[in-house]
């Protein structure tokens, strides 16, 4: 741009085009004028999908086509439900934020691999519709959408979702044609080896069996700070404390605190479900209390309820307390 273009004789508020006919277009906006582009909503959701890779890999290795089928059904149903509801509300298309994809994969990983196709579809529609859209869409929901969907089918199709739902698999691995470790223990007092629980060579929902895969993906999420480490830390701390106390009191000789930690959907829930930012508190302190509350309810449900597992209900219970936790944990401002 040559000097003459900036002289006063040109239009006072505009910059005259230079020889090539191109002039800089000046815009105004509010501060700050820079933003951290490496961390966006979309990137957060993609992080979750990346972190789910080891879990997905492990579930496909163990449950083979069953797991693939269930995930594809939930993924497609969630995306379709999201698209349909967006259209109904005349909103702009928002599949690109990948949040529906995350809900779909998590739902697919948390339903029994052998559940019929309509269970996955109904769970997906409820997850997106009642779990999310009814509250006003992404960011407005009170409860974790995937858990809302799962809770619905768990109660609506109790037979398909209960212990028997996990026992009719035909894969190459023997261990997983039996009852889930938590069911086997709850009903028959049979304990499973820690090694099998850790690597995931047991029955269960596809995503939850391998503690190792959940830890790998979960730690990645925490390092990326897409998931807040305070939440899984709170859950694991309380499970260790309560499970440890139970051990000391000798209430369950074969089912130790490590069984509690590595079995069921505890680690999957701690790293992938409870860490949903929308339905968890804002402050570090609130997040830790939220995690601790989930850990507490999981142990209470596991010890005293009729259900072998308590992660889902614990998360939903604490989701309901999130607004309250936000109000209780307003941090002290600097200089206050």
């Amino acid at each position: 741009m040559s000097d003459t273009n900036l002289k006063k004789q040109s239009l006072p508020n505009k910059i005259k085009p230079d020889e090539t006919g191109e002039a800089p277009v000046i815009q105004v906006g509010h501060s700050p004028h820079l933003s951290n582009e490496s961390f966006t909503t979309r990137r957060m959701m993609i992080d979750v999908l990346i972190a789910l890779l080891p879990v997905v890999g492990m579930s496909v290795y163990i449950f083979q086509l069953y797991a693939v089928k269930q995930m594809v059904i939930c993924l497609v149903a969630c995306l379709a439900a999201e698209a349909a509801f967006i259209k109904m509300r005349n909103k702009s298309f928002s599949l690109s934020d990948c949040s529906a994809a995350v809900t779909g994969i998590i739902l697919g990983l948390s339903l029994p691999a052998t559940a019929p196709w309509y269970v996955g579809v109904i769970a997906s529609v409820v997850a997106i519709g009642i779990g999310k859209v009814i509250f006003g869409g992404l960011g407005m929901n009170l409860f974790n959408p995937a858990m809302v969907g799962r809770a619905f089918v768990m109660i609506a199709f109790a037979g398909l979702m209960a212990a028997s739902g996990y026992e009719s698999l035909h894969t190459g691995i023997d261990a997983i044609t039996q009852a889930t470790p938590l069911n086997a223990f709850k009903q028959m007092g049979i304990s499973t080896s820690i090694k099998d629980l850790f690597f995931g060579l047991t029955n269960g929902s596809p995503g939850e069996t391998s503690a190792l895969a959940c830890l790998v993906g979960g730690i990645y999420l925490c390092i990326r700070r897409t998931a807040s480490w305070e939440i899984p830390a709170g859950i694991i701390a309380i499970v260790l404390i309560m499970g440890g106390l139970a051990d000391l009191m000798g209430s369950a000789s074969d089912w130790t605190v490590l069984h509690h930690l590595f079995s069921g959907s505890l680690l999957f829930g701690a790293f992938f479900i409870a860490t949903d930012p929308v339905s968890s508190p804002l402050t570090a302190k609130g997040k830790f209390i939220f995690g601790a509350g989930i850990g507490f309810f999981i142990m209470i449900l596991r010890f005293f309820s009729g259900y072998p597992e308590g992660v889902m209900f614990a998360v939903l219970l604490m989701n309901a307390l999130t607004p309250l936790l936000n109000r209780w944990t307003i941090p002290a401002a600097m200089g206050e």
Partner: protein
Amino acid sequence: MALKLEQFEGNGTFHRGVHPPERKHFSADAPIEVIPTPKEVIIPLQQHIGAPSKPLVKPKQEVAYGDLIGDNEAFISAKLHSPIFGVVQKMAVTTLPNGRHVPAIRIKAKGRQFTDEENYRELMGGRWSKSVVGYDPDEVTRAINDAGIVGLGGAAFPTHVKIGPGKKPVDTLLVNGCECEPYLTADDRLMRDIPDTVISGSLLSRFAMGIRDIIIGIEENKPQAIASIRKAAAGTDIKIAILKTKYPQGSEKHLIKAVLNRVVPMGGLPADVGVAVSNVTTMTAVARAVIRSMPLTHRVVCVTGAGIVQPKNLLVPLGISYRELIKFCGGLTKDAARILSGGPMMGFSFSDLDMPLTKGTGGVTVLTHDDIKKEKETACLRCGRCVDVCPMNLVPARLAVASKHQDLTMAEKYKIRGCVECGCCAYVCPASLPLVQHIRVGKALIMASKTNK
């Protein structure tokens, strides 16, 4: 002799904050140049915090370089001086980049002006004594008032008020050389090019306040400035605190925390914890006013960014138009997109290049289309990133919601007045929400509701 950081109460940094790209390379290596005297200057009557100045000149009146043209009748206000030889024009109203409309004195250049060399020699060159012998503290304060000096770091609070006798005992003068805003290099260049002036002004200010300690705080990303200030401070008892590079280290509350480990109470001033904070540029103006009896007519400004053809650090007369500054730096590039008075984190964007430069502006940043954010605003995910970075330990997401819904009770409950508008929250927000803008609106609503009562 400069001391190591271990000898301070603070740990050299503060909690939370962000690390935006520094981008100081555009202008960091350009020594301070003098801009030729412009044909016209516009001196707004309100360039500072406090009451506006009262004009002392009439149209067609001839004024000389350094003549008093605006007086301060109120205590918290500042005097104005002509930066050129010229003739006063009809009173005008000008708009400043922050959106305020203020009356202004226009002066058209007439007759011989100082050459660039003369300006440089008078304002920055020569020897600067480090002795305060022969001065009287009141005389120094009076000279600062007479020179119309205000805080040149941006806040533009009248310096004679800060340095003069206050109700609260102050023990430390903290000189702010952090310059934590990305891009800007004016303070850095000043410390590198004329460190003696900075030291001289600091010693005089301390003398006027009658206190013991002077500490100059500089971020560690300015090693040359640190070395240069260290050399100039040799033989004095001035301490130098090298601080971790983090935004907003230059915020006075965070500087006090980092160096002295003292916390300014909410709604309070540095004086509440016995500290006076002043910018390095202000210190050079003090030295000039006291030693050479020169009023504040010029300042160093950094014109920088990828949208400027040739980024520079300039010594410019106050009241010069942004157009002249940009023109002197080769103009705008084709992809220039946003012109800011100040840096990219807290600066104001504007489009009228004929606005005048005021006392508190130390930088003009021109960003390109690539620099400014393009991400569309999406829903708040309540991820808490804004909480993780807020240097005031607030909950910006809740403040923004409260402001947006005009829920002033909730805004006050979440301590909206604690917000310093540094922009960390909006910088990191994954949903690209205009958090600071919402909070500003909320603050304005609260102010309005209070005045109505």
